[in-house]
């Protein structure tokens, strides 16, 4: 089946510092990679979406300056949270799309970010 790994699973950083998280699709080439955030007691918000042959598209309230993403190939993506503050804490999920109809997102276990 489709597997998506994320690293690290959990991380703590000091307020104002930055941290990088990675996403790896195993056994398939993702046609799209999306990063989502689940803040405490909330649902999932899309941060940005990267599809084959297209530029990375950020959702409103999220910017490349704050959440730079690297998507060098169809199996790997990384995202950095720059200058993390309390409101950035939460679970960050990477979803990789297999293509087809419907194009289904398969998610990694997430990176849980705590900000002190």
């Amino acid at each position, binding site marked *: 089946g489709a597997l998506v790994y994320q690293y690290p699973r959990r991380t703590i950083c000091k307020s104002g510092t930055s941290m990088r998280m990675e996403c790896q699709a195993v056994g398939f080439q993702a046609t799209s990679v999306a990063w989502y955030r689940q803040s405490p007691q909330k649902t*999932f918000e*899309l941060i940005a*979406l990267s*599809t084959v042959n297209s530029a990375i598209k950020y959702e409103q309230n999220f910017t490349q300056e704050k959440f730079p993403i690297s998507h060098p190939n169809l199996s790997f993506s990384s995202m950095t949270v720059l200058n993390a503050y309390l409101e950035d804490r939460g679970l960050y999920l990477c*979803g990789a799309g297999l293509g087809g*109809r*419907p*194009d*289904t997102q398969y*998610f990694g276990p997430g990176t849980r970010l705590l900000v002190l």
Partner: protein
Amino acid sequence: AQSVTQPDARVTVSEGASLQLRCKYSYSGTPYLFWYVQYPRQGLQLLLKYYSGDPVVQGVNGFEAEFSKSNSSFHLRKASVHWSDSAVYFCVLKYNNAGAKLTFGGGTRLTVRP
């Protein structure tokens, strides 16, 4: 704009009872609909998906969902729940097949009493 509403934030049932988790969506076109489950301290796992055809779709672990265009709904059902089904369930809408933006409902926290 598209949206997903899960009217029940929390549902509690006894083990062995039947279950229905409600989901209503708002979208004028043909939706792609999914149910995902989030177990404690884990990411999201796909339960089932619907695009076209038979409005009743079967998923993993005995779950099924029924699409209703007239009611704009995609309710999740299970005939007999197990304590291990306790988790948060998300109804998700995708408004086209290109790209991957998903619109999530608020989630329903299911507690199954032993």
